């Protein structure tokens, strides 16, 4: 059984279609969602995080239907969600922030301490415990957002732009943590950084105007890039990405 299933999912904002009949089956491991701005990445992530509902189509997360209230509650106890956090503006300190999110997730005191400790160590936040979140550099905020998502041992981790504007150290830490977690949980992340995402994902999904333009392994994208005539001296990965987004007809990957 697949862990996450989307069946002909559509979502429209004020008559502008954001997603048009998306079919996806995701299993354990890391899936990177890519595509230009406005292609529907954030909408897709918000659907998986149960923050919004589709206009039509079905979603199943570990067999549960987010449209049914009791199943939704079950999904949410096993969900970690990190929205795009550019404007995380709170007076909470790092430690207060983590305790607050742990309380929102309903963790008891033992789980709370255990998980917070573990995430602070894994994501190198120990030096910033008492600093206000709003004053942290972007890289540290991104690490904090991933740390809070990991609280409560989720089965599904949904991360929007975890690498945007991060420094070198933060990027290494994040890649390391995400690599280690992908063996036991389903990670879905969106971003722009082709090389970073290809390095940690075992699957790439490229969205184009609300539809799936590519859905396969990074190696397949490289192969597709090598197969194109490449006048601009792009890396095979970049050439593959551009080919997937171009209008030329190409063999459709079987959606099922």
């Amino acid at each position: 059984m697949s862990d996450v299933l989307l069946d002909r999912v559509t979502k429209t904002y004020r008559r502008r279609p954001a997603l048009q009949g998306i079919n996806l089956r995701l299993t354990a491991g890391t899936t990177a969602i890519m595509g230009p701005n406005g292609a529907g990445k954030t909408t897709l992530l918000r659907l998986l995080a149960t923050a919004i509902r589709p206009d039509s189509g079905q979603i199943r997360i570990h067999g549960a239907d987010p449209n049914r209230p009791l199943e939704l509650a079950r999904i949410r106890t096993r969900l970690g969600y990190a929205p795009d956090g550019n404007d995380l503006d709170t007076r909470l300190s790092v430690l207060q922030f983590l305790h607050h999110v742990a309380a929102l997730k309903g963790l008891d005191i033992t789980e709370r301490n255990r998980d917070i400790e573990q995430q602070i160590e894994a994501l190198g936040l120990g030096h910033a415990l008492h600093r206000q979140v709003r004053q942290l550099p972007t890289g540290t905020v991104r690490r904090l957002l991933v740390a809070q998502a990991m609280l409560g041992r989720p089965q599904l981790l949904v991360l929007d732009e975890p690498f945007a504007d991060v420094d070198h150290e933060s990027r290494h830490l994040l890649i390391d943590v995400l690599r280690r977690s992908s063996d036991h949980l389903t990670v879905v992340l969106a971003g722009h950084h082709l090389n970073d995402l290809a390095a940690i994902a075992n699957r790439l999904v490229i969205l184009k105007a609300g539809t799936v333009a590519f859905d396969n392994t990074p190696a397949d994208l490289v192969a597709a890039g090598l197969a194109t005539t490449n006048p601009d001296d792009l890396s095979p990965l970049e050439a593959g990405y551009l080919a997937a987004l171009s209008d030329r007809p190409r063999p459709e990957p079987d959606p099922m």
Partner: protein
Amino acid sequence: MTHPSRAELRGYLTSESSDFEADTIEHHLVGCSSCRVEIRDGEWTNRSWRQLRTTIRTPPRSRPERTLVTVGIPNHIAHLIAASPAFRPAWWLSVAAALVFAGIAAGAVTTNPLASLPFLTVAPVLPVIGVALAYGIPGDPLTQIAAVAPHGGFRLLLIRGLTVSASSIALAVLAALFFLPPNAAFIWLIPSLAATAATLALSIRMAAPVAAIVVVTIWIMLLGATTIAGTPTDAFTIGPHLLVLAIAVAIVGGARNSAPSSAAT
């Protein structure tokens, strides 16, 4: 280049240095690989980590939070009710708004009982709307995280609405004791206390938004009945009955359904 001392590095590692010192050290670490190695592999970092662990496990708890835990409220709920100082401005804003509403309602209704109708219609939901406006910064990442957390979203709104109603009632009663007019302002806050408590109680059996719709529907129907009878303010006596009914439903439901009560939001 002058390297930070071991004591300074340790202070940084255990979050004991000031923000300014931490910034300085962080800046230094970016450009100094030997200090990075020292901080990562130094034999003293284990000891620092043990110290850090103590800090993490004993976060400062406010007196209200400790009191709530003592009287048997689960840890995570107590934490959300007491909140941290960072949320206090929003809390005071909500309480102030509730008190202003109660004051205006009590002042306006003394002469004509039918004038109470618009106030009675909104009384159960107004404090919760106030809370939503005061706390919720739409699009803020923390709001988005809370919205999909098991105890976030609508449940968190109800928990906060309940504490705001209860605190406002306490303050209004206190004001009445000191003969601050209008005396009966507090009764205008009882419908919201009853409605939020009833919704939370019912949410053990059904999705919280459905519970809210049930409670508001019952309130409007009963208010309609008392208005037709010519005495809309009789609706005040309904609030407590509604609450008792909901608690009974919750207890019966909770007993039959002793599985985790993590009701949907």
